[in-house]
């Protein structure tokens, strides 16, 4: 580890915390009827959109209605994208004459982008036409917003004093697109172009390298996809190697800009939450717990990567692990980005996760297994963290023998059951599918690296699917039918196993009277609660995966330092 490396990580973290309040205030204005500087342009457009789509913005929805509207929007988005992928060869803006996608890959990709996972069983520059990339952008604009709408509705459940409705899904969607997603994407696209990302619709360029021969260089509307991809924590890169491909992140400056862009809305949401419940300390405690876990993970990864590979050091070489890393990022920034990719759940990568050291790769895996609540993507991260908070007050209540309360609402058996359900389903899916994959021919066929690392690849794939993350240990044969279907199902389970219970909790607590805090109330705006929350995430959320981690990355770590390789040779 180097001083600039450590400093860089700390400075980034400070910047992320510093933008929480301004972003949160803006979100509050957008969703709670405040004024913003975009109103003169967007208000008339918003009204027109409601007229064209027949939406009555004043109509409120109960949690079941809210969920059905969201589900309908997801279903239509899925079908639409699926059709486009199946027929891209016949459409214009396909200068490389790329073929239609098959049914397996189209299913996998459409589910992936609809659920904000952006798991990619394909390489963009040799699979997707410019029209298909644009259709992927549509989902990159919309899918994070379904997550955001969810948490906004969830918070309304805790804050509304009367009624039993959670707002109007269509209104939340349209406002998020017009006030948040599109303006930020336009500005970010231009910043990315200035930093070296292309934005054109030309055929691939043929260059004549100095050493002779020719080089075909992929082009396209890269910047306008990268902006919403990173801002919306989608993660589906334009190119096969995503942010590692130098057009997508041409410099350390570009990658840092993208990182701050990706973390901005999720950290802002914690402040929004505090503001909405009229106690900003509630939000700061949640953010504090998130940042503590994130920093811990980053330094563990960085330490492992900076230490390097002892087997390579035996050849007389010195230095950090540079396999699968880019020089313009180096070990520190690569470690930061790869930890963020599963902490903030954006899923794009700037280094090859499959080639990280065993412990370096375990940290991103752990982040996903904990439910991607360590900051987390738009809405779903905070939603998961609030579910953990409900469990934490429940556990605290058990310890002192009082009825647990959270934000003035009594937490009873229904809420706890739903919070536990949101945690148990992903666990079963990850471990169940992994067991199936490693014990079946179809699953084994996709494993690339020998030994315990192969298990890590499979565990990572299903954790990424369920967590709606999208990053991968890239060696895995993700395009095999076995994985396109099982990971596709994992993505669906992960998405809806979190949505339904969370909205059910919101729908339940909105009917409860707010009780004033008493001497017996466990305060949830203190750092003591923050520590309890971290404990709950680690012990309840992630410890269940310890046996699997012991067989995968931990086994590989100890074998590696004992000088052992797997699969023959030495």
């Amino acid at each position, binding site marked *: 580890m180097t001083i600039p490396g450590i400093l860089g990580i700390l400075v980034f973290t400070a910047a992320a915390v510093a933008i929480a309040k301004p972003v949160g205030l803006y979100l509050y204005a957008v969703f709670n009827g405040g004024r913003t500087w975009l109103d003169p342009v967007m208000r008339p457009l918003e009204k027109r959109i409601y007229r064209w789509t027949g939406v009555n913005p004043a109509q409120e929805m109960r949690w079941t209605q809210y969920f059905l509207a969201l589900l309908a929007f997801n279903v239509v988005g899925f079908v639409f994208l699926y059709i486009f992928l199946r027929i891209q060869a016949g459409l214009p803006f396909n200068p*490389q004459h790329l073929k239609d996608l098959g049914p397996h890959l189209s299913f996998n990709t459409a589910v992936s982008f609809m659920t904000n996972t952006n798991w990619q069983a394909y390489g963009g520059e040799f699979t997707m036409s410019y029209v298909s990339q644009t259709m992927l952008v549509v989902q990159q604009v919309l899918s994070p917003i379904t997550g955001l709408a969810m948490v906004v509705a969830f918070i309304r459940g805790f804050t509304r004093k009367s009624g039993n409705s959670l707002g109007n899904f269509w209104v939340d969607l349209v406002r998020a697109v017009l006030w948040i997603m599109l303006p930020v994407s336009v500005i970010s696209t231009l910043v990315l172009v200035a930093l070296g990302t292309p*934005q054109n619709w030309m055929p691939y360029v043929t*260059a004549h390298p100095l050493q002779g021969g020719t080089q*075909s260089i992929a082009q396209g509307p890269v910047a306008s996809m990268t902006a919403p991809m990173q801002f919306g924590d989608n993660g589906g890169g334009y190119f096969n*190697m995503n942010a590692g491909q130098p057009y997508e992140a041409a410099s350390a400056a570009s990658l840092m800009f993208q990182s701050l862009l990706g973390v901005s809305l999720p950290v802002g949401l914690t402040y929004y939450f505090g503001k909405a419940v009229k106690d900003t300390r509630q939000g700061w405690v949640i953010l504090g717990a998130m940042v503590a876990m994130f920093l811990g993970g980053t330094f563990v990864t960085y330490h492992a990567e900076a230490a390097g590979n002892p087997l390579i050091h035996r*050849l007389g*070489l010195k230095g950090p692990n540079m396999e699968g890393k880019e020089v313009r990022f180096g070990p520190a920034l690569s470690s930061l980005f790869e930890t963020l990719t599963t902490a903030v759940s954006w899923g794009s990568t700037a280094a090859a996760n499959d080639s990280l050291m065993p412990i370096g790769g375990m940290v991103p895996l752990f982040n996903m297994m904990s439910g991607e609540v360590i900051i987390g993507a738009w809405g779903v991260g905070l939603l998961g963290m609030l579910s953990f908070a409900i469990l934490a007050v429940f556990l605290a209540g058990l310890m002192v023998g009082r009825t647990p309360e959270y934000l003035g609402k009594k937490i009873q058996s229904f809420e706890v059951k739903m919070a536990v359900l949101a945690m148990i389903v992903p666990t079963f899916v990850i471990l169940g599918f992994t067991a199936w994959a490693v014990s079946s021919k179809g699953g084994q066929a996709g494993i690339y690296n*020998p030994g315990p690392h192969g298990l890590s690849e499979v565990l990572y794939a299903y954790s990424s699917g369920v967590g709606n993350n999208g990053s991968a240990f890239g060696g895995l044969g993700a395009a095999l039918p076995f994985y396109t279907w099982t990971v596709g199902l994992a993505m669906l389970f992960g998405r809806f196993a979190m949505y339904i219970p969370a909205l059910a909790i919101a729908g339940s607590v909105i009917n409860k009277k707010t009780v004033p805090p008493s001497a017996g109330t466990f305060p949830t705006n203190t750092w003591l609660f923050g520590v309890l929350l971290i404990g709950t995430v680690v012990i309840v959320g992630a410890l269940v995966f310890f046996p699997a981690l012991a067989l995968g990355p931990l086994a590989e770590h100890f074998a590696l330092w004992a000088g052992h390789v797997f699969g023959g040779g030495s």
Partner: protein
Amino acid sequence: MIRHLWTATRMLILMVVLVLVYQAVTTGLAQSLMPYQANGSLVRLHGRVVGAAPIGQTFNTAKFFWSRPSAASYNAAASAASNYGPTNPALLKEVKTNLAAFLKANPGVKPSQVPMDMVTSSDSGLDPDITVASAMIQVPRVAAANHLSVSAVRALVQSQEVGRWLGMYGLPHVNVLRLNVALVKLASRNG
């Protein structure tokens, strides 16, 4: 539910239109404000496109500074990493092969002096950069092959050096294509 589906369909079509407008606006702005970057930051030498500045290309002969090993063979229409895990024997074999080739081309260099980036594959397979240390260690070979003085080539490397961003982010590096283009120009001036 049918009503929701109908609303959802109309909403989606509208959103697709908004994204198309977004694509058109961003492309138009990028093309008119920053045409060089928007069209791929292409590098020309004597009027011919020799590559793109952010995209690496193969350099493995004596007279050029070498770029990093690549799992994609520098195919800029198909980025790829090796994806070798740290305990995969294939990784060790790859590093050994790369190390042997580098030592053979640069006589007098010891393994402990070879920077890690010269023997490992990058993430994209298109890494345009090498560390400053990796460039410096190639200076004697490159100078001899181009009939240039070691000090002139070393100065060339220093002139191309890019430091850490804000003093913190990334490794100090040189862009190999830019460095080699500068080298070709220097050699033709001297020759």
